[in-house]
């Protein structure tokens, strides 16, 4: 289908060692390449290092060996401030526990990253945020405090928030892990739809249903890619 596949993310020989009370290596020379428009799921048993890998790829965790390149830019070794700016521009996050800011309305939660980015003026940001909420069928709840929404609703707001800055890469950590089956179905549908719209998505999950809807499944076991 794709003639020219542009590489969005490239990870080379990632090694992660936790040095706490006991030294524990969780990733062994993990290399991964994700092209534009790909919907990739990373699967594996809990403790296999899949979440750890996601946080390395997300630039939040900087304590590792190897090299991560996103959109052609090597992010390994950038300082905190540059990384924050980079995340704001290029990466959208969805977490297992939706993590909305409870004092803010759904709309404000979606708007915050865009206000931080400062690419559009406030009115524009608000319009875009409403668009994203509409896409998630959450526009009816825009003015409600996010703390008052149900888990499924919050997760959809969180996805809208991840999309607001038109990121090149969407990362999700167990996005359905905390949802009932009806909401899980909805969220899986949303990711599928986002993938079809050309978004590049990496999802960490142990939900087979979700994984099977992806373009590609990366199996991780004991810190190594096995399939």
């Amino acid at each position, binding site marked *: 289908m794709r003639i020219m596949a542009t590489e969005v993310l490239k990870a080379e020989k990632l090694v992660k060692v936790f040095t706490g009370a006991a030294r524990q290596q969780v990733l062994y020379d993990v290399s991964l390449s994700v092209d534009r428009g790909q919907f990739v799921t990373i699967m594996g048993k809990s403790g296999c290092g899949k*979440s750890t890998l996601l*946080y390395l790829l*997300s630039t*939040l*965790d900087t304590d590792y060996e190897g090299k991560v390149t996103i959109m052609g830019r090597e992010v390994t070794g950038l300082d*905190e*401030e540059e990384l*924050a*700016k*980079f*995340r*704001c*521009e290029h990466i959208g*996050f969805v*977490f297992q526990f939706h*993590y*909305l*800011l409870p*004092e*803010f309305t759904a709309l*404000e939660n979606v708007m*915050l*990253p865009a*206000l*931080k*980015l400062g690419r559009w003026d*406030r009115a524009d940001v608000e319009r875009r945020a409403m668009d994203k909420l509409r896409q998630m069928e959450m526009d009816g709840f825009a003015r409600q405090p996010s703390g008052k929404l149900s888990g499924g609703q919050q997760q959809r707001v969180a996805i809208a*928030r991840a999309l607001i*800055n038109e990121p090149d890469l969407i990362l999700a*950590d167990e996005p359905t892990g905390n949802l009932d089956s009806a909401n899980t179905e909805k969220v899986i549908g949303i990711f599928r739809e986002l993938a079809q719209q050309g978004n590049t998505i990496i999802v960490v999950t142990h939900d087979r249903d979700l994984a099977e809807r992806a373009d590609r499944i990366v199996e991780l076991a004991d810190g190594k890619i096995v399939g």
Partner: protein
Amino acid sequence: MKLPVNLSIARVHLLSRKKQTLIATLGVTFGIAMFIFMISFMTGVNNVISDILLSVTPDIHFYNDVKTDYGNSVTSQYFREDDGKWIIVRHPRPRAILLNLKNAPGIVAGMRRMPGVAVVSPLISVQVLFNYGPVQLGVIADGVDIREEDRLFGLTAKMVNGRPEDLLTTANGILIGRKLAAKLNVVTGDLVTATASSGAQMRFRVAGIFEFGLSQVDEGKVYVSLQDLQQLLGKDRDYITDMRIKLKDNQQAHSLAQMLARKYGYRADDWETTNASIKAGNRIRNTLTYVVSFTMLVVAGFGIYNIMNMVILGKMKDIAILKAQGFDRRDVTTIFLSQSLVTGVTGGLAGLLLGFLLSYGLSTLPFPHDDFMLIKTYPVTFETRHYLLGAGFGLLTTLAAGWLPARRAAKVDPVAILRA
């Protein structure tokens, strides 16, 4: 209101915990208010005390400080002193010497020509006794040129009865303090008898009654004319023991006093030396004020620190999520430090206002009447300087109190929080 994104987050945070915000704000408010209140009152007290004491202290007091010279003794005339012989005199007695300033008229004329000198009042100051029935009252009698003394201390304004000039028109006139008049049970026109240490007596007619507001003066001092006192003491017309000098600028007193002492060979005390106790008292009161106010501000600061710390503990996830979305350390610091600052500035302004109102209230409160002081209400000053100082202190405390929690928030590692 369109605030930058960090500040609008701060605003939402502050408004979402109104009660805590209010408590933190009130802490600062009371701290600053008490600072303003205390310093205004203390400064007022200091000023009143200084005013009263300085109203009876000349800028420079010039007098013959009798130093007993035991260096040579008449004994050497009787025992021939040579090598190997020591003469030891136990309990030597000083020679009878005159306490007066020699060539007083010349010195007065010389001083009056000096630039910087406003008034020179030559006088004799001696201890005399007043008899009232069986009671003898020891009083300092100043024989003065009353016009000069009036220019020096503004006597006219301090007369309860009569005028200073009445001393000149009344034969053997005397001006006495209000409390002494009450003790002697005399009013203007009555006669009083003064006894000098030599035993000489003289009757004076009360020409006026003054009140300085300082009991040691009001019951321990009388004014008579220079000539009358010279007569009572049996001295000649040039007999002067002291001079009081008023300067155009009393800050020059110290250097000028030293100069006068060197030039004439007599002792000259400036007002600062004479009133060292006022300065010490002022300093103690000021120190106390600053210590107490500072403590209160620190307590208010701890309030902010505590609340911000708790807020940040409760917002760890929010901080992690903000960071994941591209907010950096500086943004997080701004978000939380601005909350402390808003608390501090709001509380501080309210504190300045409350402090002013408290001070104003106190300044209208009647002071319990006491013969000691001549003030009708509590002494309070209103100085812009104090308000600026209070505002500065408040801002500094809140900055310090807010900085630590904000920095802690900025250091939050999002991975540790999000994965937990």
